């Protein structure tokens, strides 16, 4: 009995350490079968990701057990065949490098094609095409040439008497906020609060080393969204603000959260008019601004879609967003 058990372990050891051919055959089949099952589940049946992952995990586990049983118990093999030759290793390495190069070339090809379309659209003052280039760049996550984008955006902002030019300028602002994804601060130590649609006010107790303070966040946000509140507590003059300009609710507080992230989950709209927002990142949201009073201090817009009115304050806000990822802007 013990001899049999030692034999199985010996075969398992041989299978895992030396029998490359059998092991990679097993790995290949698992990837193909489980991948096809997962693809059918996800792409054709529109199942949730959790279900598909569970199915793939089960398939992989069953196939692994079956393969181990086959190679180590039913038909054990102690002859791994010859080691892979240098030639076959070199061929595989060259194939991988070629695939990587083609992938990089495809990525760069898209950026170059869009850059060239942008140049052409700008030179012919084709504002519709210009906006379309920015929209395609966002959809395909393509980074256009920075200098070209800046030049085009400035040109669009000076030609805003034409409605199509203004739409293109706003599209360039959308694109600029898409680029901010890598520049804006992200959550590290944060408290997560989901705010359902219809609620645009949160009374939050900031708990720090000092006395607890009741803090209010009451900017008009329409739609489901969530807040990520930094767990670092600072004095109120350095705290994050997300409130109406005239609101005096936080005036008496001595401390608050250092930073705030508002995530619109691609559903919510944040209205900027009459708001005081400070040390805040707003992401995945639609931003509405009619040119009213606003006080923005160290605010980042990430992957946002803008609905800006074409007036002086709207143009100024657009210009500020295009100039720097961190925005400080005040309008009376």
């Amino acid at each position, binding site marked *: 009995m013990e001899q049999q058990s030692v034999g199985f372990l010996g075969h398992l050891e041989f299978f895992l350490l030396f029998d490359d051919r059998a092991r990679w055959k097993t790995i290949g089949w698992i990837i193909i079968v489980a991948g096809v099952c997962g693809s059918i589940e*996800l*792409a054709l049946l529109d199942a949730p990701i959790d279900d598909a992952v569970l199915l793939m995990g089960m398939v*992989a586990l069953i196939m692994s057990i079956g393969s181990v049983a086959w190679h180590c118990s039913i038909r054990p093999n102690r002859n791994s065949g010859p080691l892979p030759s240098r030639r076959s290793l070199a061929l595989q*390495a060259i194939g991988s490098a070629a695939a990587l190069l083609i992938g990089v070339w495809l990525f760069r090809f*898209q950026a170059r094609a869009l850059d060239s379309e942008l140049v052409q659209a700008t030179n012919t003052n084709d504002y519709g095409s210009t906006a379309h280039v920015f929209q395609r760049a966002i959809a395909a996550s393509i980074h256009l040439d920075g200098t070209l984008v800046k030049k085009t955006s400035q040109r669009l902002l000076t030609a805003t008497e034409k409605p199509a030019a203004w739409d293109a300028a706003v599209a360039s602002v959308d694109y600029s906020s898409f680029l901010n994804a890598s520049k804006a601060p992200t959550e590290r130590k944060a408290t997560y609060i989901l705010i359902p649609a219809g609620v645009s006010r949160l009374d939050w107790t900031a708990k720090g080393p000092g006395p607890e303070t009741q803090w209010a966040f009451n900017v008009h946000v329409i739609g489901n969204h969530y807040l990520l509140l930094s767990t670092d507590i600072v004095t109120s003059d350095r705290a994050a603000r997300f409130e109406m300009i005239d609101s005096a609710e936080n005036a008496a507080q001595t401390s608050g959260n250092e930073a705030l992230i508002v995530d619109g989950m691609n559903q919510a709209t944040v209205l900027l008019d009459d708001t005081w927002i400070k040390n805040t990142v707003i992401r995945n949201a639609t931003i509405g601004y009619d040119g009213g009073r606003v006080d923005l201090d160290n605010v980042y817009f990430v992957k946002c879609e803008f609905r800006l009115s074409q007036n002086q304050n709207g143009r100024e806000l657009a210009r500020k967003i295009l100039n720097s990822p961190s925005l400080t802007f005040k309008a009376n």
Partner: protein
Amino acid sequence: MGRLPVRPPTEDESFWREVWTEDLRSFVKHFLSDFVKTLSILAALYLFWEVVAWLRFRGYPDDLCQKLEKTHFAFMWIALVVTGVNFVLRQVVGIWNNNR
């Protein structure tokens, strides 16, 4: 012309040669083989991803691109899990084998 006399290997040289032929050579070849195969799978997945992005860029229907992205996710997930488990298991069994 007589053949040049061959210098016999020193004790040090023969030790390293023995280490290479008996232990390291097989390990390095198996490791390289695994590494290159894993790299091939990752490269194929990357190429798949870029092809889907390119199809999207060329204006193919969004629905088709989303289906392909989901397919890519399924293959990427299972490939990373299986190759990761393969790597970890080999190290664990290798260490266990050396400690026996």
